[in-house]
């Protein structure tokens, strides 16, 4: 009984300590952001690494998610004789939920892991320690530009995902099935609000960018400086980012759309 209690207590203390440590790291990262903004060169390099290299997976996934939404949405809607609402269904589900969430999950897998591995290997190779020896703050020089790049890239990637998905839904719905093109677009435009739907989607994806970027960098920075440690850290990044994105998505959805 006491051992059980002790393990519960140890787990709780460990969890709180981890939370506090992560929060302090987050504040340190935020404090280093202005310094990083003075070096746009580093941010641009990271944008290329994080953003451009994620384009293909985001584009292809968005296209196929749009295809599938078009097919499945039509199947359900035509039972109720409202196949014209297909555009609205595709656009709303992409802009509000699927765009930000799926793009964030892909982003965590594609860019988050590489950030973790990069930072983890820098730590294992004692590059971060060497920088500190030279009075260069590794948080400002290495981590903050990556964080800013993730924050910028995520909303753009999510918007591309949604836009390509809508085009995919249009290709299947209008091109393949033969839903009326005018009704497809007009229903969509009548039902999608710029600020309430598109704007909240952008806010969501920016939050997901913060989450994915922070978790990837934190886990990489705190990884064990061994090959196994880096491997474990990469796995942790994917699992933790995905769960955090899904959890925060529920909270954000409840806050944004729950009242209406």
């Amino acid at each position, binding site marked *: 009984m006491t051992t059980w209690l002790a393990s519960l207590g140890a787990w709780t203390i460990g969890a709180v300590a981890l939370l506090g440590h992560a929060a302090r790291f987050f504040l340190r990262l935020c404090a280093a952001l202005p310094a990083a903004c003075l070096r746009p060169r580093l941010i641009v*390099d990271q944008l290329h690494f994080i*953003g451009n290299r994620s384009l293909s997976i985001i584009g292809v996934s968005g296209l196929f998610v749009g295809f599938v939404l078009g097919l499945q949405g039509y199947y359900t809607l035509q039972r109720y004789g409202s196949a014209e609402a297909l555009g609205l269904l595709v*656009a709303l589900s992409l802009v509000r939920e699927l765009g930000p969430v799926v793009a964030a999950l892909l982003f965590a897998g594609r860019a988050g892991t590489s950030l973790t591995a990069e930072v983890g290997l820098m730590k294992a190779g004692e590059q971060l320690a060497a920088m500190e020896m030279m009075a260069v703050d590794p948080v400002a020089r290495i981590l903050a530009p990556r964080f800013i790049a993730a924050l910028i890239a995520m*909303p753009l990637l999510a918007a591309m995902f949604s836009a390509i998905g*809508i085009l995919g839904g249009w290709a299947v719905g209008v091109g393949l099935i033969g839903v009326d093109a005018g009704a497809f677009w007009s229903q969509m435009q*009548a039902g999608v609000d710029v600020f309430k739907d*598109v704007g909240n989607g952008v806010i969501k994806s920016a939050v997901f960018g913060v989450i994915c970027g922070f978790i990837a960098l934190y886990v990489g920075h705190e990884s064990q400086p061994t090959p196994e440690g880096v491997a474990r850290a990469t796995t942790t990044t994917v699992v933790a980012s995905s769960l955090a994105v899904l959890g925060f998505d529920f909270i954000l959805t409840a806050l944004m759309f729950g009242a209406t």
Partner: protein
Amino acid sequence: MLWRDPVKSNRWIDVMVGGFVLLGLAALLFLALKAANLGSFSSGPAYEARARFDNIGGLKVRAPVKSAGVVVGRVASIGFDDKTYQAVVSLSLDERYRFPKDSTVKILTSGLLGEQYLGIEAGVEDKMIGAGETIAMTQSAVVLENLISQFLYSKAADGGKKE
């Protein structure tokens, strides 16, 4: 990555990142303009008119106001007057379109179970509705429950006569 020719690679990366950001902004623009029709009607100059209804049914703020099927405005706000127990709907109508004073405003439904919208049927008078004026002639929403109960009552009354 560190051992590439710095001048050439920097320029190339700049171009690539510029393309990436441009693509992202284009996607946002597409979502705002094509998927959500920003500015197609919301930003034009408009004037307000009011109408009172006994029952507005399921009318919502931002519902379209149509005349002859063309969208000419939106519902700006819906309020309740506790003196007359009527709903006060203010309409934001496009500056380009003017309607005679004796026009009728109806609450209509698109399709059997669709969204409700306002329909304006133009009158014949020469004077036009100005900003802030109240449109006198209105027709309330058709509430399906009332229709059904009326139908049932009339059926019951008919049945009573026959027996």
